[in-house]
């Protein structure tokens, strides 16, 4: 991965941002990260840099509304191509990652939406913490007043499979007033840096901007490991190995917020029968398969279709064709191409029906479950079932999202599916949309990014079920402690 700069492909320099300060690579303290299309030159992460990454008290003292307002301003910048950094980001996603222009624009749009969604952020705080004022004030909860405080230094180990997920992790940590270190993944060095740099564009002296860092270190880097060890919270996105590494290396009091590997499936009931409905469902399914080239945890990898599956399958070919134009596939590495080709050939050996786009851009496999590892690359496994009751046997805690059509299937099956470990059930076509109140991998992430303190009412307040002041000494003397609460 590291080595001298190559002469072919794009040469891109990506700076770090360290505690709100841009750090450009200066030889010899640089490293080159190569992929099939580009060589990215970044600064070398150092112990000295790591030392600068400490909790910033400024953001902890900032009213939530100021943080959200800043994020909103930032999101507005990201809204259009008027913003040069967005233009550069969209171009570099294509050059460096091989992402198609429409898909790159879609990533930038999502970043804008995530940053700009102030009302939704307030709602999210309200739902996940119990009150949107929780980080700014003491909130009455029964006989206490409770207030949420940031954990402190939050380190985000990103996976890079979905570029805009960096924005999700960033916003969650900032609105809970944490200092943020975005540790980029080798396959996406662009997004964390672009986000942090855009904050400097917005206002380099703003406490939020000064609380954000975007860096990269190699997996064996001791300074990076030591930083994780002293972090107050670690959000880790990616493989089980990555999650286990964090569990081994994080401090004993650190809150680990894992987003480990998940898969998602779609379910289509027999109630879909008219041509228009079929077309709509097929397009919705195509969206959930094609977005992020199926690399997201919420991407549909399999669809269970209540028999007969044939009408939907006929419509799917057209829908996949349509989405091939809307979101053209990223350029494949030879490894990506090989994994998909080998999967197709395996399916053929096992007797499955395999339908492939003329250009190899998508694959539909019928009559076979994916092996231990789904190949991604827009491959959909179709299972025809006689009853949707059969679906639950295929669900477990590794299933993040189930997308359904028609919607009333949700009401009929959600108890069963959720009890098997499914985190979310959505309408088909909306599997990527986390609405306020949605769980993420089985929990509310904001609640894990704060610690709660409570102040409790004095003895003069009797409390529920108590009809006299609380005097424990007197009750111990009289042996009446058990009567503290009236029957």
């Amino acid at each position: 991965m590291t080595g001298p700069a190559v002469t072919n492909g794009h040469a891109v320099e990506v700076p770090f941002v360290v505690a709100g300060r841009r750090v450009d690579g200066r030889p010899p303290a640089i490293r080159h990260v190569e992929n099939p299309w580009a060589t990215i030159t970044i600064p070398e992460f150092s112990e000295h840099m790591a030392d600068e990454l400490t909790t910033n008290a400024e953001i902890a003292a900032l009213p939530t509304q100021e943080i959200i307002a800043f994020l909103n301003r930032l999101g507005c910048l990201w809204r259009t191509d008027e913003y040069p950094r967005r233009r550069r980001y969209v171009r570099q996603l294509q050059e460096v990652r091989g992402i198609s222009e429409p898909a790159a624009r879609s990533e930038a749009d999502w970043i804008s939406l995530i940053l700009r969604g102030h009302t939704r952020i307030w709602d999210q705080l309200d739902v996940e913490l119990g009150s949107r004022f929780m980080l700014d004030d003491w909130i009455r909860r029964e006989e206490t007043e409770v207030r949420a405080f940031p954990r402190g230094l939050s380190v985000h180990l990103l996976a890079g499979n979905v570029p805009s997920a960096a924005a999700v992790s960033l916003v969650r940590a900032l609105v809970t007033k944490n200092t943020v270190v975005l540790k980029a993944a080798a396959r996406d060095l662009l997004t964390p840096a672009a986000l942090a740099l855009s904050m400097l564009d917005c206002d380099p002296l703003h406490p939020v901007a000064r609380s954000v860092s975007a860096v990269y270190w190699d997996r064996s880097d001791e300074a990076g490991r030591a930083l994780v060890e002293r972090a107050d919270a670690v959000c880790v996105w990616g493989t089980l190995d990555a999650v286990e590494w964090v569990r081994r290396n994080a401090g004993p009091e650190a809150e680990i917020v894992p987003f480990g590997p998940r898969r998602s499936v779609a379910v289509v009931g027999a109630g879909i029968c008219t041509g228009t409905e079929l077309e709509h469902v097929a397009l919705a399914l195509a969206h959930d398969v094609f977005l992020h080239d199926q690399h997201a945890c919420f991407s549909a990898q399999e669809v269970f279709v209540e028999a007969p599956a044939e009408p939907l399958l006929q419509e799917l070919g057209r829908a996949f064709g349509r989405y091939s134009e809307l979101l053209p596939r990223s350029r494949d590495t030879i490894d990506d191409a090989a994994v998909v080709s080998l999967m197709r050939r395996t399916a053929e050996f096992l007797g499955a029906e395999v339908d492939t786009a003329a250009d190899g851009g998508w694959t539909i496999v019928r009559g076979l479950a994916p092996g231990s590892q789904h190949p991604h690359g827009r491959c959909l496994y179709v299972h025809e079932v006689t009853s949707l009751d059969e679906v639950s046997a295929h669900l477990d805690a590794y299933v993040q999202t189930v997308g359904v059509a028609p919607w009333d299937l949700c009401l009929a099956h959600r108890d069963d599916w959720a009890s098997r470990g499914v985190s979310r059930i959505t309408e088909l076509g909306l599997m990527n949309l986390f609405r306020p109140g949605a769980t993420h991998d089985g929990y509310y992430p904001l609640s894990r990014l704060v610690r709660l303190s409570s102040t409790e009412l004095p003895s003069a307040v009797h409390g529920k079920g108590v009809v006299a002041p609380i005097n424990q000494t007197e009750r111990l003397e009289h042996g009446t402690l058990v009567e503290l609460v009236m029957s």
Partner: protein
Amino acid sequence: MSAFVAEVTARVHQLDEVAPVDRIIFGRANPFAIAKRDEMALTSALVADYVRWHRDHNVGFGRFVGRFEPADGDDLVASVPVFPIDLFKQLDLASVPNAEVVRRFRSSGTSGTVSVVPRDDVTLARFAGSMRVGLRLLEPWLSTDELDINVEVVSLTASPQEAGDIWFSYAMALGRAFASSEFLVQGGVFLAEAAADAIARHLANGALVGVVGPPALLMDLLTWMGANGRRVRGRDRIVVLTGGGWKRRIGEAVEPDELRREAARVLGLDSLEQVRDCFSQVELNSVFVECAQHRKHVPPWVHALARSPATLAPVAPGTMGLLAYIDTSARSYPCCIISDDFGAIDPEPCPCGATGTTLRITRRVARSTGSEGCALKIQHALQGPEEVDG
């Protein structure tokens, strides 16, 4: 002739009719001296017979082959469908009755998803034969006619008994079929000092010493010998054969030429030609041994081709693709496989003079989670935990 080879030969001769592939593997003629044109005709004939036989004896493979009808003008050998080796993790691909399977060999790995390959006597005998044929490429440093006379093998692997059904260990321990062997990985621990002692002892006794093992353990041995003042003067009396690759210790891998130079320095070899690498995998039934030019030669009973990662169609020699093999020595299972390895078929004949296809293996296909290989089992006890994303 060792008892093992005699037994193998006897088994093959028990067959009603000696198959053409056996005439090549076990015949007296040098398979690497067949003229190119004859070799192509021979391989084509062997492959056609081979595919037909497995189609008729293996229902799953027969159904698979039936899905692919070659178009007019297609190269019949190149159009034989190959299947991914992953299928050995999912299916029992035996083409012979269970009673004929003498052993099911496994690739190593800790994930629980390992390849399982059923082998009968004939298939195992042919594998041993392929090793013997491959060793011809080591001449004049090693004469295959004298293998069992004065050769001592110092094996940097576990004994076959300790290794169980792990194919790599079985293959690397095959030296025992031809020569006296000592196994220096015991209880998962590599005994470097004992290996150095054995080399010195055999040299003192005037034996020709074969040092056989994975490159990482060879490097461990060389490092230990260098650090402990145990360098030897092997001159032309040591031949080193590595196999299995660096696997999990890939971070420590050195260039092949560097390994050869270090081996020559510590073992006091006359020539870098005395250090060779070889390739096999559990799903393949032959060994590709390096010649003096350090090219891996494919024997004529194996058809090797690089295929496009995107379409699996054959690519031109010299072009990198997924390496695919049809190994007609595998009777107990259909060895019409496409591997997980990127590589290329060399476009030019090998200057060493041996005929036949030579190939380069570049690297494994990168998947989102790592897979572990054969050398892992031995090395597991010798290293720290695997690196992870973090």
